[in-house]
């Protein structure tokens, strides 16, 4: 299989600090991959290595099968949206946007203007083409930098948090536009973001980074339901964790004794490879915890004291002290509210089919 972009064992060290650690990534032509991760985990560094702005300490980067090590950025046929926009301060918006085209030897004024107009419509910038970057708002500047990168149709497009400065509505619209445009141009893209929702909507696959490593690459639907590690379960959405030791294995069904002393039953695929006494961590989403059931013969029944009740609109989140300093989050639909306030005891059960095995 020929990949459009292929990273093999790529690492970047700053003295003894490891910013990016053995990253492997294969991206097909036209595919959009999100890089999701907390601040400082090495996302920008990875993009800069792909762009050729910094050299990897080790490993190879291939674009269309060609080894890019030592190839300067302007010969890689890529484009990039910078986290800090990096617009050319002395050039007008229009000149900024067509810069990449001019560098690709497109000289025809008509063509340049046609493409610029199209791009400015997409990012909703029409009317400011003559202004200098410093005469624009932060969000407008960001859109100029987006337009500047997308107007050239490169082999690989790199986005470093391109929508971080837009308001929620505009961000939602623009990301749809970006995705449509990328798909129409059939351009391979890496899209860095902090925003999970953005990652989930814009990309074909999501790579979650943590401390310089890619912890999991998967399609958006699986990231939430099947997080591979504890970090991902906690990073993408909310999760409660139960650490414990395996007591019993029966097919996909396991029994775990948690450190808090609860016995938890779970149905997890691949459980049969676990053995007795193995330390595991189970995760469960707040919305998969069912309230009530005191006295019933439900599995995984736990009780605790409500310490806080947070109204979130469509749901209400309860923070529950389940003993041993264990805090559990429970989400309840507002219409199914149970009559519980702070300090009350609440009973709840963990849905055995929605327990996730992380950190095997």
């Amino acid at each position, binding site marked *: 299989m020929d990949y459009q972009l292929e990273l093999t064992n790529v690492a970047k060290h700053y003295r003894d600090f490891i910013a990016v650690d053995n990253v492997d990534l294969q991206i097909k032509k036209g595919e959009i991959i999100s890089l999701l991760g907390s601040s400082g985990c090495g996302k920008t560094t990875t993009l800069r290595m792909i*762009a050729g*702005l910094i050299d990897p300490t080790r490993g190879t980067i291939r674009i269309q099968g060609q080894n890019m090590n030592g190839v300067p950025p*302007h010969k890689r046929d890529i484009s*990039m949206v910078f986290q800090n926009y*990096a617009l*050319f301060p002395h050039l007008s918006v229009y000149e900024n946007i067509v810069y990449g085209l001019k*560098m690709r030897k497109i000289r025809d004024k008509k063509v340049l203007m046609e493409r610029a107009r199209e791009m400015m419509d997409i990012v909703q910038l029409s009317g400011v083409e003559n202004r200098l970057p410093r005469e624009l708002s932060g969000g407008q500047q960001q859109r100029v*930098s987006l337009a500047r990168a997308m107007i050239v149709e490169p082999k690989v497009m790199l986005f470093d948090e391109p929508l971080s400065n837009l308001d929620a509505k505009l961000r939602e619209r623009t990301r749809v536009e970006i995705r449509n445009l990328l798909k129409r141009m059939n351009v391979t893209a890496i899209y860095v973001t902090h925003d999970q929702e953005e990652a989930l909507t814009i990309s074909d696959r999501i790579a979650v980074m943590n401390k310089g490593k890619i912890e999991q690459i998967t399609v958006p639907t699986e990231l939430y339901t099947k997080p591979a590690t504890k970090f991902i379960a906690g990073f993408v959405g909310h999760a409660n964790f139960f650490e414990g030791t395996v007591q019993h294995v029966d097919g996909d069904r396991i029994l775990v004794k948690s450190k808090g002393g609860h016995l938890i039953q779970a149905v997890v695929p691949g459980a049969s490879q676990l053995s007795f006494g193995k330390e595991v961590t189970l995760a469960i989403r707040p919305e998969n915890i069912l309230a009530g059931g005191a006295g019933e013969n439900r599995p995984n029944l736990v009780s605790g004291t409500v310490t806080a009740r947070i109204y979130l609109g469509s749901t209400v989140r309860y923070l529950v002290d389940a003993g041993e300093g264990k805090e559990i989050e429970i989400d309840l639909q507002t219409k199914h509210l149970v009559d519980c306030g702070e300090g009350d005891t609440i009973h709840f059960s963990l849905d055995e089919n929605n327990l996730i095995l992380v950190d095997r």
Partner: protein
Amino acid sequence: MRREKDTWSYVNIWYLIIPLAYVTFLFLIPIFKMIYMSFFEFQGVGKALGVFTWHNYARFLMDPYYWKVLGLTVGLSFLSAVICAVMGYPVAYHLCRVNAKAKHILTALSILPLWVPITVRLFGLMSLVETGTLLAVELGLVYCGLPYMIMILTGPIGNVNRSVEEASYVCGAGFWTTFFRITFPLTIPGLVSGFMLVFALNTAAFVVPVILGNGKIITMTTLIQQQATYIYDWGFAASISVIFLIVSMIISNSGKLYDLWQARKAARSEKLLRTAVRGEGENL
């Protein structure tokens, strides 16, 4: 280029009295006295001034020799400022691109000549070139101007955001294209002020033409000195000074012409683009 005016300031206006008084006594009064003196026949040191006359000016303006001196002064200074700009720019560029530690060391090295008194430096130079030649004077001017040029240029070059250059590379521009389209245009205002400073310093240079010109190369400054201290014609010396002052003022303010030109160019291209991009007219 529009500049917003500050409407308030931290500085109490009365503090300005001190520098103002300083400037008045040491600059304005002597200069007006000099201008006054330039219109009278000089009768000798300590004696009353003679009658009002235009003669001092006429004498300078009518004699091609003096025009040549003026031309030589401006020409040598201009050339030296150009050479300083051409030689100083790459140095300043590299100073801004090395790591912080190397930058400290290299900056110190490049301004090292300024630590040595100028006469000492020039006597050193005398051992290398034949004095009394244009080459010697020009070398001296460049030698004195270069550290200033480098220091001034490190400001604007250092201020060019690196990620802007990176953006240019990523857009497909190589090093030189990036340099000429991005880095250089962004540093032109700094280059103009560096140029103006070196140019002004050079026209006002006195020690260089005295030591390296060795009496054979006469510039405006040495001409004034000759007239004032050897010939004792203070009236003529004063009129030369006034002419020199006016020429210097014109030249050092010509940097503003650049601003003006930029503003006009921006306005013109904006108009063109507005009609074109909006599709109101296709005649570009």
